[in-house]
């Protein structure tokens, strides 16, 4: 069930209606029934039921055991068991082909003719999300951040909370999980705020992202046909397509949860205003970054191995440089894991992993150099023009890395880069351009206007909540804006041929 479908809309209305009319004590049961229905909606069979239970049961049992033996060696063992079971299943279901393909490559390199056949694994929606969420649940009990949930059905609700299954955000038991079992009164303000956020998300997805998708898909699948200007355009458009699709989905999810009365953590903070890639990743898919930081990066950095490495490096390279080396080692591991999270193909490991690390690494080691250069040349770095240059540079670097992310294979990405730097203007008339864009002038005009709207809204959002500002306005203006949003979705949304509302770019991860 896609997020922007009629079925999902009806599903949410029914859920919310029942949620607010049943006795408050059993509200969480309504959420559980809806969540389980959503989880198995497209994929219900004995295999998928076992898959879900194979995560729920270990997380529940080991969670309770870790709690019982808190602060003992046994607790550590139980945590390790629990994580191992969930992780093994996740790897089996999501990454078998990656390993098989890697073996095939190695066989090829050594001239071995044998090749493994790739396999199809039927995995449940949201498997990566709920697996990692349950790993963090057990780890939090181990760390003493929270107590284990004694009711297995409540535990199941935390694991399968339906709004977040398609695109996140990552939730924590201590902050969000407990909210699910609380009683929630219907709140008119929350409903208005939630609905507005849902509308804005749908606008981003249907009006902007889908339209950008036409252009990006067309140029990416016909590399070499179009000249470098148009290839550049597709490369620059893709991050925006991804952002409007992903953050739009998050808006829909947050809106639904807000109406229920459960506040989810923000996943984006205007990433395209970032002045460095380091800052960009603090504002993009924030909850994934926080998950990796708390459950991988910090424990790794604090581990005895890393501390020993830290000491050795400090002795050899001095304090300043020495302490950076273990940090970079942990970062490489983390960025490779981010590549794995996105699907594990080499394109993801390079595009959303290693290249991002490379940029952050370069930013870190070059910042003293660039500071010196700026000082010598007397460049003022605190002015608008310099910030603008930094914002554009960050966007360009991110777009470059995203070529790998979007391309079907690494060789495909290299072809695109070659095409970007083959300065052949070729024939560049109106017909060719429109053909490349995959849309007519009317659609192109809508795209430009909607992108401008997005830009203005984001500029305003930098100075505080837009929804609060809007709801303070007079009724005519307020409803004028809301109706414009609704009508623009209905009239300008892309529902045409080839449009697949369930094809969320981020849903596949």
């Amino acid at each position, binding site marked *: 069930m896609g997020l922007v479908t009629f079925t999902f809309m009806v599903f949410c209305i029914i859920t919310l209606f029942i949620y607010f009319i049943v006795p408050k004590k059993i509200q969480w049961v309504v959420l559980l029934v809806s969540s389980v229905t959503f989880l198995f909606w497209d994929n219900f069979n004995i295999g998928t039921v076992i898959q879900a239970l194979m995560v729920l049961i270990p997380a529940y049992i080991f969670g309770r055991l870790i709690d019982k033996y808190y602060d003992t060696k046994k607790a550590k063992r139980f945590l390790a068991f629990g994580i191992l079971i969930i992780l093994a299943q996740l790897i089996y279901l999501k990454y078998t082909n990656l390993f098989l393909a890697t073996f095939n490559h190695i066989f090829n390199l050594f001239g071995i003719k044998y090749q493994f056949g790739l396999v199809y694994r039927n995995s449940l929606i949201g498997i990566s999300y709920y697996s990692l969420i349950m790993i963090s649940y057990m780890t939090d009990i181990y*760390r*003493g*951040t929270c107590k284990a949930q004694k009711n297995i059905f409540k535990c199941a609700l935390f694991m399968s909370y339906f709004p977040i299954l398609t695109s996140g955000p990552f939730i924590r038991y201590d902050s969000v999980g407990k909210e699910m079992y609380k009683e929630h009164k219907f709140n008119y303000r929350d409903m208005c705020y939630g609905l507005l956020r849902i509308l804005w998300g749908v606008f981003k997805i249907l009006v902007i992202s889908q339209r950008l998708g036409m252009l990006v898909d067309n140029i990416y699948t016909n590399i070499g046909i179009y000249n470098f200007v148009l290839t550049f355009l597709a490369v620059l458009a893709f991050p925006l397509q991804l952002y409007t699709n992903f953050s739009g989905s998050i808006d829909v999810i947050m809106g639904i949860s807000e109406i229920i009365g459960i506040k989810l953590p923000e996943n984006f903070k205007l990433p395209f205003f970032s002045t460095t890639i380091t800052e960009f990743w603090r504002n993009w898919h924030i909850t994934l970054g926080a998950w990796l930081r708390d459950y991988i*990066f*910090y*424990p790794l*950095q604090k581990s005895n191995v890393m501390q020993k490495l830290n000491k050795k490096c400090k002795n050899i390279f001095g304090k300043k440089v020495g*302490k950076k080396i273990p*940090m970079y080692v942990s970062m490489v591991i983390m960025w490779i894991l981010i590549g794995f999270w996105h699907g594990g193909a080499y394109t993801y490991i390079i595009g959303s992993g290693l290249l991002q690390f490379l940029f952050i690494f370069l930013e870190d080691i070059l910042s003293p150099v660039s500071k010196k250069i700026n000082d010598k040349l007397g460049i003022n770095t605190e002015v608008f023009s310099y910030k603008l240059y930094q914002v554009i540079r960050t966007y360009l670097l991110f777009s470059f890395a995203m070529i790998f992310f979007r391309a079907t294979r690494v060789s495909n990405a290299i072809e695109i880069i070659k095409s970007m730097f083959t300065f052949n203007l070729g024939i560049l008339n109106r017909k060719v351009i429109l053909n490349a864009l995959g849309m007519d002038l009317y659609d192109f005009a809508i795209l430009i206007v909607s992108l401008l709207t997005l830009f203005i809204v984001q500029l305003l959002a930098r100075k505080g909540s837009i929804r609060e500002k809007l709801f303070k306005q007079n009724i005519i203006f307020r409803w004028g804006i809301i109706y414009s949003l609704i009508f623009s979705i209905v009239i300008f949304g892309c529902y045409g041929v080839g449009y697949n509302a369930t094809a969320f770019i981020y849903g596949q991860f």
Partner: protein
Amino acid sequence: MEKEEIYERLNNVFRDIFDDETIVVTAETTSKDIEDWDSLEHINLVVAVEQEFGIKFNMNEVTTMKNVGEMVDIIISRISK
């Protein structure tokens, strides 16, 4: 150990880690107040504080400490044990 002494020793640790002799921490100081205090440097800081006071923070404390005041509270609870 008096709180003042703890803050004094913490100042030295912070100055050393962030390479800035002007740092003076208070209970309200957070990572937002110190430019280089990001998630990358956080563990270096935590380990340096651990070594300074001969204590260990657990992972829950490492990830949930909100300001220097909370850090000092944990230090006091550990060294008074």
